[in-house]
Protein backbone atom coordinates (compact mmCIF):
# COMPACT_ATOMS: atom_id res chain seq x y z
CA UNK A 1 0.00 0.00 0.00
CA UNK A 2 1.68 3.19 -1.18
CA UNK A 3 1.67 5.81 1.54
CA UNK A 4 4.00 8.45 0.08
CA UNK A 5 2.13 11.40 -1.39
CA UNK A 6 3.93 11.17 -4.73
CA UNK A 7 2.44 7.78 -5.37
CA UNK A 8 -0.94 8.49 -3.81
CA UNK A 9 -3.85 8.51 -6.23
CA UNK A 10 -5.81 11.70 -5.71
CA UNK A 11 -9.23 10.44 -4.86
CA UNK A 12 -12.22 12.81 -4.71
CA UNK A 13 -13.30 13.96 -1.24
CA UNK A 14 -16.90 14.43 -0.20
CA UNK A 15 -17.47 18.16 0.16
CA UNK A 16 -18.00 19.09 3.79
CA UNK A 17 -17.10 22.72 4.51
CA UNK A 18 -18.90 23.75 1.34
CA UNK A 19 -22.05 21.90 2.35
CA UNK A 20 -22.73 22.07 6.07
CA UNK A 21 -24.04 25.23 7.63
CA UNK A 22 -21.88 26.40 10.55
CA UNK A 23 -23.47 25.37 13.84
CA UNK A 24 -22.65 25.94 17.47
CA UNK A 25 -21.32 22.38 17.69
CA UNK A 26 -18.85 22.54 14.83
CA UNK A 27 -17.77 26.13 15.45
CA UNK A 28 -17.12 25.53 19.14
CA UNK A 29 -15.25 22.36 18.33
CA UNK A 30 -12.86 23.95 15.87
CA UNK A 31 -12.46 26.94 18.20
CA UNK A 32 -11.40 24.55 20.94
CA UNK A 33 -8.69 23.23 18.65
CA UNK A 34 -7.70 26.71 17.45
CA UNK A 35 -7.49 28.17 20.96
CA UNK A 36 -5.37 25.18 21.93
CA UNK A 37 -3.00 25.86 19.07
CA UNK A 38 -3.01 29.58 19.87
CA UNK A 39 -2.19 28.94 23.51
CA UNK A 40 0.64 26.64 22.43
CA UNK A 41 2.01 29.51 20.34
CA UNK A 42 1.91 31.58 23.54
CA UNK A 43 4.01 29.12 25.52
CA UNK A 44 7.35 30.37 24.11
CA UNK A 45 6.29 33.89 25.15
CA UNK A 46 5.65 32.59 28.66
CA UNK A 47 9.14 31.10 28.76
CA UNK A 48 10.58 34.33 27.34
CA UNK A 49 8.93 36.31 30.13
CA UNK A 50 10.22 33.90 32.79
CA UNK A 51 13.68 33.98 31.31
CA UNK A 52 13.73 37.78 31.35
CA UNK A 53 12.53 37.83 34.94
CA UNK A 54 15.41 35.55 35.87
CA UNK A 55 17.94 37.62 33.95
CA UNK A 56 17.43 40.96 35.68
CA UNK A 57 15.51 44.23 35.83
CA UNK A 58 16.75 45.69 32.53
CA UNK A 59 15.86 42.62 30.48
CA UNK A 60 12.55 42.33 32.31
CA UNK A 61 11.70 45.97 31.65
CA UNK A 62 12.15 45.39 27.91
CA UNK A 63 9.76 42.44 27.97
CA UNK A 64 7.20 44.41 29.95
CA UNK A 65 7.43 47.26 27.42
CA UNK A 66 6.89 44.84 24.55
CA UNK A 67 3.91 43.16 26.19
CA UNK A 68 2.39 46.50 27.22
CA UNK A 69 2.50 47.83 23.68
CA UNK A 70 -0.82 47.91 21.76
CA UNK A 71 0.12 44.76 19.83
CA UNK A 72 1.27 43.12 23.05
CA UNK A 73 -1.95 43.94 24.85
CA UNK A 74 -4.03 42.63 21.96
CA UNK A 75 -2.05 39.39 22.05
CA UNK A 76 -2.45 39.10 25.83
CA UNK A 77 -6.18 39.74 25.55
CA UNK A 78 -6.40 37.10 22.85
CA UNK A 79 -4.45 34.61 24.91
CA UNK A 80 -6.55 35.27 27.98
CA UNK A 81 -9.78 34.68 26.07
CA UNK A 82 -8.25 31.62 24.41
CA UNK A 83 -7.28 30.29 27.82
CA UNK A 84 -10.73 30.71 29.37
CA UNK A 85 -12.47 29.40 26.25
CA UNK A 86 -10.19 26.36 25.98
CA UNK A 87 -10.65 25.76 29.73
CA UNK A 88 -14.45 25.92 29.60
CA UNK A 89 -14.79 23.82 26.45
CA UNK A 90 -12.16 21.45 27.86
CA UNK A 91 -14.25 20.97 31.01
CA UNK A 92 -17.21 20.41 28.67
CA UNK A 93 -15.22 17.62 27.00
CA UNK A 94 -14.36 16.08 30.35
CA UNK A 95 -18.03 16.17 31.34
CA UNK A 96 -18.91 14.43 28.08
CA UNK A 97 -16.31 11.78 28.84
CA UNK A 98 -18.41 10.79 31.86
CA UNK A 99 -21.35 10.37 29.51
CA UNK A 100 -23.32 13.31 30.81
CA UNK A 101 -25.01 15.85 28.50
CA UNK A 102 -24.25 13.82 25.38
CA UNK A 103 -27.57 14.76 23.82
CA UNK A 104 -28.45 17.38 21.23
CA UNK A 105 -29.98 19.54 23.93
CA UNK A 106 -27.15 18.90 26.38
CA UNK A 107 -24.51 19.81 23.83
CA UNK A 108 -26.37 23.00 22.96
CA UNK A 109 -26.85 24.07 26.58
CA UNK A 110 -23.31 23.27 27.72
CA UNK A 111 -22.01 25.03 24.64
CA UNK A 112 -23.83 28.25 25.41
CA UNK A 113 -22.75 28.07 29.05
CA UNK A 114 -19.12 27.54 28.07
CA UNK A 115 -19.24 30.43 25.63
CA UNK A 116 -20.85 32.71 28.19
CA UNK A 117 -18.60 31.78 31.10
CA UNK A 118 -15.39 32.11 29.08
CA UNK A 119 -16.37 35.54 27.75
CA UNK A 120 -17.44 36.65 31.22
CA UNK A 121 -14.18 35.48 32.81
CA UNK A 122 -12.16 37.28 30.15
CA UNK A 123 -14.05 40.52 30.75
CA UNK A 124 -13.71 40.14 34.52
CA UNK A 125 -9.99 39.57 34.18
CA UNK A 126 -9.36 42.69 32.13
CA UNK A 127 -11.66 44.84 34.24
CA UNK A 128 -9.66 43.74 37.29
CA UNK A 129 -6.31 44.37 35.67
CA UNK A 130 -6.95 47.68 33.96
Amino acid at each position, binding site marked *: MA*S*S*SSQKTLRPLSPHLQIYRPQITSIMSILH*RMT*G*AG*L*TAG*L*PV*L*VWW*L*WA*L*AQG*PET*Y*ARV*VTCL*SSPVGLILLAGW*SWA*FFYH*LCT*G*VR*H*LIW*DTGAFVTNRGVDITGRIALGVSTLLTIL*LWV*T*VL
Partner: protein
Amino acid sequence: MSASPNDLRSPLARVRGLGSAKNGSGHWLTLRLTALALAPLGLWFVGGLVRHIAQGDYTAARMWLASPCTAVLMVVLLVVGFHHAANGLQEILEDYVHGKAVRLTSLIAIKFAGVLLAAAGIFSVLKIAFGG
Protein backbone atom coordinates in the same frame (compact mmCIF):
# COMPACT_ATOMS: atom_id res chain seq x y z
CA MET B 1 3.88 -17.66 18.68
CA SER B 2 1.63 -17.91 21.72
CA ALA B 3 -1.41 -15.70 21.61
CA SER B 4 -3.04 -15.03 24.93
CA PRO B 5 -6.76 -15.84 24.86
CA ASN B 6 -7.51 -12.15 25.40
CA ASP B 7 -5.39 -10.89 22.52
CA LEU B 8 -6.90 -11.01 19.06
CA ARG B 9 -3.99 -9.20 17.43
CA SER B 10 -1.64 -10.80 14.98
CA PRO B 11 2.06 -11.08 15.95
CA LEU B 12 2.90 -8.23 13.57
CA ALA B 13 0.29 -6.01 15.15
CA ARG B 14 1.64 -6.77 18.59
CA VAL B 15 5.19 -5.97 17.53
CA ARG B 16 4.21 -2.69 15.89
CA GLY B 17 2.28 -1.70 18.99
CA LEU B 18 -0.21 0.43 17.11
CA GLY B 19 -3.94 0.04 17.03
CA SER B 20 -5.96 1.00 13.99
CA ALA B 21 -5.97 4.59 15.20
CA LYS B 22 -2.16 4.65 15.13
CA ASN B 23 -2.17 5.49 18.82
CA GLY B 24 -3.74 3.79 21.78
CA SER B 25 -5.82 4.84 24.72
CA GLY B 26 -2.71 6.06 26.52
CA HIS B 27 -2.68 9.15 24.37
CA TRP B 28 -6.33 9.85 25.15
CA LEU B 29 -5.90 9.33 28.88
CA THR B 30 -2.76 11.46 29.10
CA LEU B 31 -4.55 14.31 27.39
CA ARG B 32 -7.38 14.08 29.92
CA LEU B 33 -5.11 13.81 32.95
CA THR B 34 -2.94 16.73 31.91
CA ALA B 35 -6.09 18.72 31.19
CA LEU B 36 -7.44 17.90 34.64
CA ALA B 37 -4.19 19.11 36.21
CA LEU B 38 -3.96 22.21 34.07
CA ALA B 39 -7.42 23.48 34.98
CA PRO B 40 -6.59 24.48 38.57
CA LEU B 41 -2.94 25.17 37.71
CA GLY B 42 -3.89 27.53 34.92
CA LEU B 43 -6.42 29.37 37.04
CA TRP B 44 -3.87 29.68 39.84
CA PHE B 45 -1.36 31.13 37.39
CA VAL B 46 -3.83 33.63 35.96
CA GLY B 47 -4.68 34.69 39.51
CA GLY B 48 -0.99 35.12 40.28
CA LEU B 49 -0.53 37.18 37.12
CA VAL B 50 -3.32 39.51 38.19
CA ARG B 51 -2.08 39.93 41.73
CA HIS B 52 1.69 40.06 41.30
CA ILE B 53 2.63 40.55 37.65
CA ALA B 54 0.10 42.79 35.97
CA GLN B 55 1.47 45.95 37.58
CA GLY B 56 4.77 45.38 35.79
CA ASP B 57 6.85 45.72 38.92
CA TYR B 58 10.06 43.66 38.71
CA THR B 59 10.58 43.21 42.45
CA ALA B 60 7.02 42.14 43.13
CA ALA B 61 7.16 39.63 40.29
CA ARG B 62 10.43 38.16 41.51
CA MET B 63 9.23 37.95 45.10
CA TRP B 64 6.18 35.98 44.06
CA LEU B 65 8.08 33.58 41.83
CA ALA B 66 10.80 33.10 44.43
CA SER B 67 8.40 31.77 47.04
CA PRO B 68 8.73 27.95 47.29
CA CYS B 69 5.08 27.13 46.60
CA THR B 70 4.95 29.35 43.53
CA ALA B 71 8.20 27.96 42.17
CA VAL B 72 7.08 24.35 42.57
CA LEU B 73 3.67 24.97 41.00
CA MET B 74 5.30 26.91 38.19
CA VAL B 75 7.63 24.02 37.37
CA VAL B 76 4.69 21.60 37.40
CA LEU B 77 2.71 23.99 35.19
CA LEU B 78 5.54 24.11 32.67
CA VAL B 79 6.04 20.34 32.53
CA VAL B 80 2.35 19.46 32.36
CA GLY B 81 1.58 22.39 30.08
CA PHE B 82 4.17 21.53 27.47
CA HIS B 83 3.19 17.87 27.61
CA HIS B 84 -0.47 18.72 27.08
CA ALA B 85 0.41 21.10 24.26
CA ALA B 86 2.60 18.53 22.49
CA ASN B 87 -0.14 15.96 22.87
CA GLY B 88 -2.72 18.33 21.41
CA LEU B 89 -0.47 19.37 18.55
CA GLN B 90 0.11 15.73 17.75
CA GLU B 91 -3.62 15.27 17.23
CA ILE B 92 -3.68 18.28 14.93
CA LEU B 93 -0.76 16.87 12.94
CA GLU B 94 -2.40 13.48 12.66
CA ASP B 95 -5.60 15.02 11.37
CA TYR B 96 -4.23 17.47 8.82
CA VAL B 97 -0.76 16.37 7.75
CA HIS B 98 -0.94 13.32 5.56
CA GLY B 99 2.64 12.82 4.43
CA LYS B 100 4.25 10.33 6.75
CA ALA B 101 7.73 11.88 6.60
CA VAL B 102 6.52 15.44 7.15
CA ARG B 103 4.22 14.38 9.95
CA LEU B 104 6.85 12.40 11.77
CA THR B 105 9.51 15.09 11.40
CA SER B 106 7.11 17.77 12.61
CA LEU B 107 6.11 15.67 15.58
CA ILE B 108 9.70 15.08 16.61
CA ALA B 109 10.52 18.77 16.14
CA ILE B 110 7.55 19.78 18.29
CA LYS B 111 8.41 17.38 21.07
CA PHE B 112 12.08 18.39 21.10
CA ALA B 113 11.21 22.10 21.04
CA GLY B 114 8.79 21.52 23.90
CA VAL B 115 11.45 19.85 26.00
CA LEU B 116 13.93 22.66 25.30
CA LEU B 117 11.47 25.41 26.13
CA ALA B 118 10.23 23.66 29.25
CA ALA B 119 13.83 23.21 30.38
CA ALA B 120 14.54 26.90 29.80
CA GLY B 121 11.43 27.81 31.76
CA ILE B 122 12.28 25.49 34.65
CA PHE B 123 15.82 26.83 34.71
CA SER B 124 14.47 30.39 34.94
CA VAL B 125 12.10 29.51 37.78
CA LEU B 126 14.86 27.80 39.73
CA LYS B 127 17.25 30.66 39.11
CA ILE B 128 14.69 33.05 40.57
CA ALA B 129 13.79 30.74 43.46
CA PHE B 130 17.37 30.04 44.51
CA GLY B 131 18.68 33.47 43.63
CA GLY B 132 16.17 35.24 45.80
